[in-house]
Each structure stands twice: as C-alpha cells, then as structure tokens.
C-alpha cells in the first residue's frame, strides 16, 4: 500500500478534532506521538497513514486526508493500540468514530467493500435477529464483486455445507431487534 502524501505545511484548525472528540468522547489532544499504537498495529504495513500519524492529522485538522484514508477501513479493531496507549486514548473507538463521520458525510470509502460488508451484516441482523452467515456472505459477495466474486467462493461454501457448517434456515425475526434498530437509527 502506498504511503499517503500529506501536506508539508499546515495551518492548524481544531474544528475537526473537536468534532471527533465530541463523537468519540476521547481526548485526542493528549496524544504526544509516542508511536506505541503504530508499533503494535498488526496492519500498519498496509495502511496509507500510520495510526499515530492519523491522530496527528486529526489534531491538525486534515479532515479530507483522514476521512479518505485507507487506514480507517483497514483497521481490524484488534484493540492493541487502545490497550497500549499511555494516554488512555481509545484509538480503536476513534477509528469507529471516523468511519461513522465519513459515512455520515457521504464520503466514498477508499475500501468501499468494507462498508458494503457491514451493511450486509447489519441487514441480516435486522431481518433475522441473528446473522444468517450463508445468505449474508452471498449478499456481500454479490454487492461487492458481482457474480464472479460469488462464484469464487462457491467451492468453499460447498465444502462447508458438506461438513455441516452452513445453517440452512435463518432464525425467526425478532421484534425487539427491529425496535432497537429504529431507536438507534433515529436522528437526534
């Protein structure tokens, strides 16, 4: 993955930091760039902006660079950064907040298949109460890569089926789950 080209001179602007702090409840300005998050991150090698640099970008107000980065979609939420941050910043949660801000502002994700996956996953929960793995994966593969992508996984799917690892029928829908979705998705 290419390393993002970041501007060399920046006029700092705190409005983006404030937006992220309000959304996440985390104190981002306490970051002193020790790089512990980046050094422990199993996916830093694949990111265009390393986690500690991403924190710096938020603090400087480089909103576009942050929200369009690969980093926010490549982070696997393993929580190593959160566990080790000496200033107690829940960095994995900041990543969640950045993804939500990015989606909320209609920014095209640099890894568009990631939000497509999460949408398919949540749709399965909303519909059946529990995730129905088979239909969820099929929906995701079709939406992200079309029939070709779906067929590429067919052999693995068939093998799983033969081994009794595919649940055939989905669960009964849950009224309570649908109610939770409505309440959580309501705009304030």
């Amino acid at each position, binding site marked *: 993955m290419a390393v993002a080209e970041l501007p060399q001179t920046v006029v700092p602007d705190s409005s983006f930091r404030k937006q992220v702090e309000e959304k996440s409840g985390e104190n981002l300005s306490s970051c002193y760039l020790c790089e512990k998050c980046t050094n422990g991150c*199993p*996916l830093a090698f*694949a990111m265009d902006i390393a986690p500690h640099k991403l924190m710096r970008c938020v603090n400087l107000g480089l909103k576009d660079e942050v929200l369009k980065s690969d980093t926010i979609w*490549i982070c*696997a*939420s*393993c*929580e*190593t950064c*959160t*566990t080790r941050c000496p200033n107690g910043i*829940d960095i*994995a*949660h900041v990543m*969640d*907040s950045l*993804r*939500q801000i990015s*989606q909320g502002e209609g920014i095209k994700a640099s*890894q568009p*298949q*990631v*939000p497509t*996956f*999460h*949408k398919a*996953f*949540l749709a399965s*929960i909303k519909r059946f*109460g*529990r*995730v*129905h*793995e*088979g239909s969820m*994966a099929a929906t*995701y*593969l079709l939406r*992200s890569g079309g029939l070709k992508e779906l067929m590429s996984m067919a052999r*693995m799917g068939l*093998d*799983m089926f033969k*081994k*009794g*690892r*595919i*649940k055939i029928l989905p*669960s009964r829908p*849950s009224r*309570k*789950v649908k*109610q*939770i*979705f*409505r*309440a*959580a*998705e*309501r705009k304030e």
Partner: protein
Amino acid sequence: MIMEASLYPGCSLEGLAKSYKESLQSVAKTMDIKLSELDNWTCCGASSAHVTNDKLAVALAAKDLITADKAGKDLVVPCAACFQRLKVAEKHLKDGKPVAGITDRYAGNFHVKALPDFLWNDVGKKAWKDKVKKPLNALSPVCYYGCLTARPPKVTDSRNPEDPQEMDNVLRSLGANVRNWSYKTDCCGGSLTLTRPDLQMKLSQKLLDMAEEAGADCIAVDCPMCHENLDSKQQEISQESGKSYNVPILYLTELMGLAFGDPDVEKWLGRHTVDARPMLVERGLL
C-alpha cells in the same frame, strides 16, 4: 454439586463453528455443568455494529444482557467477539447510561464470562480430574486467544491481556505439552476475511509460522472467527506462498472432549477444513 450458568452461543456457533457448540455442550455435561441457552438471544452486533452506529452496538448487546439479568446466572460466552461486545454493553448498563430502545431495569447481579476464564477460574480442574481417560501427553499445542477476550482490559477485565493463561492451564491440566509463544493475542485478520482476504491471510500465515517455530503440532483456539481464519484458508495460503501448511486448529472444548474420551470427537473434527485425525491417530489419541 451441579454448577449452573447461562450460555450465549452467538451466531457462529449455529453455523461455521457448530463443532464448538457441540463440543462445549458435551464436555459441560461430562463435568456436570448445566448450561442454559439464553431465551430468544439475538446477535450482539459483532464488529459491524460498532463500526456503523455506537448506539446500535451497545443496544443490541444490552438486549441479551437484560435477558441474562432476569435469568440471574453468570453468562458464559464462547465467542471472543460476542464476549467483548457484551462487556462493552455491561459497562454501559452498569454506569446507568441510556440505551436505545431499552427501558428495562438492570440489576447486573451476574458476571459475563469468556469461556476459558469460566472453565479455569470458576469450574476449576477438580471438575474434570476424574474424567480424563486419555491424557493429552503426546500433544504439543500452542494456545491462541485472539484479540477480544483480552483487549481492551478496561472493557474485558482481563487479568493478563498480553499473556493470558487460562487455556494454557486447562490444557496443561489435561496433560498436554503446551508450548510457549509470543503470539497468543496477535490478530488473525478478524473481520477482514471477506473484505481484504489478502491481508487476513498474511496475518494468519504469520501465526501458523510462529506456531511451527514454537514446536507446536496444533493450535488451540477459543474464538470461531480465529478458527475460521486459521483453519479454512491454509490451502490458499499454501498456494500463494509456496510453503505447504497443514496445521490442525482445534477448539479448546474439542481437546477437552478428546481427553475425556468423548464418543463424538471424530464427528466434531470432521467438520474442520484441516483434518486433525491423522495427526491424533499418530499420537495415539484416536
């Protein structure tokens, strides 16, 4: 005395991780533990909810905690991802913060327990010391805990998030020659398995390599997602890398069943992609 607890299986244990549920139920019965599945449990929201909507992520998991609260027994959670999401919601409910779509009172007089913690610290080895028919002396596993039973400790209340011991202790008590390694809680690629399989396989391959370097003949796991990532992609990893992989990935409860001489062990192992049976026959365990 019969020990009782509630069980939150999670969606994977009905499908991909079926043998995890089967083996858990069987070994629980052997140890006289009554695990009652939570009534009408639904998905905890897994990684998709917290990425998308904070309120949804807490509320979906909180719903099942309310059910567990009414049942009044400790809640055992075999899936690492479910465990962590339920712990996040538990902290939220205990702090009395509002939860979308939920108005029920929450007393919280029970613990949310990851399975290895429950087995080692609550059940304890006395429960199985008379049940062992085939000690696992010939087996050299490494224990792989993955991310989410351990991290972040402010949520999981993990005693030792960088070097957990529960699975190691359980397997050692069954006679296994448990190997030490530094990759117990390194990420397997988790939810990137469908979205960035290239990255997931790279992370999983590292774990397979390090298990080999530690002198292990199999990897013991406690998370359905980790199992899936490590077990089902080995053929593809072999093709991509030119190095051949055939490392059995076994659920902790399957290994307990093996030691207890459970008649269903072969059925469970038959569900995996990498067949552990030839290695176990060679070790005189099957």
